[in-house]
């Protein structure tokens, strides 16, 4: 009996020695809900059904990208578990799904949820709970508000950033311009207009006329006629695809040939410029930040080669021409970068800290020269774009990468 007791004591001593020795190592590994030695749980909410279901391609591409990362060994040895739910683009459902992800599935963070009003609906909850709401898939500028919402961060350039870039371009290339602005009367159009004015700064008076239209209007012909009459020689068309095409057509019809800038949202060759007419669309300007999966000029590009291989191997059912797939790939790559930077400290606080310390990170699908930079007071990861001009049947990039920051 005594010998047994000695043995037990011996084992106990050995065990306590072990824990004592390993505790400094253990102390470095810190986890919040959703992270462990083997796994990182990431939540996501997408409109797989409902009016915006076309964007579901983004969620599928992201899932495929995480599968690729897992197949290649995961992040610091941990596999990603990507839990993606459908909200049908309805904000109350988004709240329900976000709470399910955080409280029931216990995810470490919610990544890349899509939509402006859907993300607005969960933002107070995420910040209350101190759960990261990272790389929101929406172009609203409100995601860059680290003071009030330190747990929410956007990813793509905001509409306001894009507008600031047009302002910079105009000031540089055509300082005596009279600008006519047509904008869609909603969050998209207003964000844009705000950015344009910020970009023009003291020269806001260059705007000769700003004219809003509602999406319920069947045609916007009258607005174009009014803008021409205002004497504007630069026309900024802050429009969604259908109206962008109408504006191009009407301007040609009434023989108005200003410097014509259309928003990136409507820069689709197949969806806007072809229906409007390739002939009359020549010379139209826009800006972009990502490579176009349908553009053969990227076939030899290293980043895009990786992207095409990824699509072939992990997401073969998707359409590589779909901008959503390119988007999902880039966003997921950024997420993986942040998790890698976290090392073994997978707490929610550290995730936000690392997300806010990205330095010159360049995902494969962004235009050469565009880099992701964030800081504690800058929650807008992509702030650069490059101007492009429509020539022949495709967009030609020109000029330098322009940063949207004011005063640069």
């Amino acid at each position, binding site marked *: 009996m005594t010998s047994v007791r000695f043995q037990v004591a011996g084992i106990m001593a050995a065990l306590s020695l072990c824990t004592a020795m390993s505790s400094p190592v253990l102390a470095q590994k810190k986890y919040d809900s959703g992270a462990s030695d083997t796994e990182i749980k990431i939540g996501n909410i997408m409109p*797989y*059904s*409902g*009016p915006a279901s076309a964007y*579901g391609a983004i969620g599928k591409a992201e899932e495929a990208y995480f599968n690729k990362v897992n197949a290649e060994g995961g992040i610091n040895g941990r596999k990603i578990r990507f839990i*993606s*739910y*459908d909200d*049908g*683009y*309805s*904000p*109350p459902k988004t*709240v*329900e799904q976000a*709470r*399910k992800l*955080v*409280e*029931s599935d216990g995810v470490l963070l919610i990544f890349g949820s899509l*939509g*402006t*009003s*859907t993300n*607005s*609906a969960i*933002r*107070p*909850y995420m910040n209350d709970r101190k759960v990261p709401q990272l790389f929101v898939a929406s172009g609203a500028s*409100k995601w860059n508000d680290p003071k009030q919402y330190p747990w929410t961060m956007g990813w793509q350039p905001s509409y306001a950033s894009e507008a600031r870039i047009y302002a910079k371009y105009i000031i540089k290339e055509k300082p005596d311009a009279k600008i006519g602005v047509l904008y869609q*009367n*909603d*969050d998209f159009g207003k964000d844009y207009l705000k950015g344009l004015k910020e970009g023009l700064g003291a020269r806001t008076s260059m705007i000769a006329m700003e004219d809003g239209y509602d999406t*319920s209007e069947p045609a916007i012909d009258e607005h174009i006629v009014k803008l021409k009459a205002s004497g504007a020689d630069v026309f900024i068309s802050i429009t969604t695809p259908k109206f962008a095409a109408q504006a191009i057509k009407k301007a040609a019809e009434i023989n108005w040939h200003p410097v014509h800038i259309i928003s990136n949202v409507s820069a689709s060759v197949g969806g806007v410029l072809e229906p409007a007419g390739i002939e009359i669309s020549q010379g139209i300007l826009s800006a972009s930040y990502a490579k176009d999966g349908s553009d053969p000029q990227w076939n030899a590009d290293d980043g895009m080669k990786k992207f095409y291989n990824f699509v072939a191997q992990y997401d073969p059912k998707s359409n590589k021409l779909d901008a959503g797939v390119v988007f999902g790939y880039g966003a997921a790559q950024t997420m993986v970068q942040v998790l890698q930077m976290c090392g073994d400290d997978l707490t929610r606080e550290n995730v936000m800290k690392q997300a806010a310390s990205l330095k010159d990170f360049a995902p494969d699908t962004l235009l050469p020269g565009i880099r992701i930079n964030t800081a504690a007071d800058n929650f807008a990861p992509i702030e650069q774009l490059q101007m492009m001009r429509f020539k022949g049947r495709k967009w030609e990039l020109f000029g330098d990468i322009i940063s949207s920051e004011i005063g640069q």
Partner: protein
Amino acid sequence: MSAAEEVVAEGHQAVAAVPKRGMTLGTGTSLVVLAALLIMPIFVKNFIIFQMTMLLIYGLAVLALNILTGGSGQFSLGQSAFYAVGAYTTAVLMEHFNVNYALTLPIAGVVCFAFGFLFGQPALRLSGVYLALATFALATAMPQLLKLNFLEHWTGGVQGLVVTKPDAPFGLPMSQDMWLYYFTLVVVIAIYIFAVNLLRSRSGRAFMAIRDNEIAASAMGVDVALYKTLAFGVSAAITGIAGSLGAIAVQFVAPDSYTITLAISLFLGMVVGGVGWLPGSIVGAAFIIFVPNIAEGISKGLSGAVFGVLLFLVIYLVPHGARQVAILGQKLAGKLRKN
């Protein structure tokens, strides 16, 4: 009688006559359900409590539609509009005027009653499918109306409004979710009792007389126009209160939240719960909240199709919805008791 009139007359009979006793649960069953609803939050996570709160809220909205369709025989695909008005009334009052959340409920109810009553006036001339179409127009128009420029200062336009979630009062040791659940439960029970009594009252009998045969009801001296608009008003008021509670629970209102999809979901909930059977409203609400989640679990890409199949199965197997299941259950229980 012209062909068109015949169609309209048939439209009325589309709602099967439900005897008023058959509209409610027995006292014993009611108490058991109530006890279950009271105890449940103590054992589950906050997220489930939130889901249960949403269940009660949608249940209330389905109940409102049930009074309109099951009670007075009028169709509505426009309930989302009343729901939106209620939600926005609460959100605007809370965020712009700092009104206490509990006080906004009756205000939303009154506003929606007026709105529903007024909408009921032109709707009087329409019945059956035509009325359904008119209300459909209301539902499609509402999200756009909420985006209007001159309202934007109040409604926040497309960006919507964030609503602050209330804490439990008197320093009660419960989470916000649990407090809101009990608050909602009290409101829902009060309205349920009101609804049951309404349908058993003189007005309720008038509703049902109109539902069963409008001409006969009118011959008996029922003021058809008044009671039809009244039914609309009451239904809108209850839907509005549901909308208010929804805004508080979700903490956010935006035009995208109140699209035609919501109106169709509520209609679906009513059919699945059993038209004219008030307790079925909760079952119907459970269907519209949980079945899409189940469908998504089965197949993400085809969640809509799976949902369709499940819905089809329910309609095919139990065309009268939960009411039919309840009656079957009652018969079974009766047989067991005899044995």
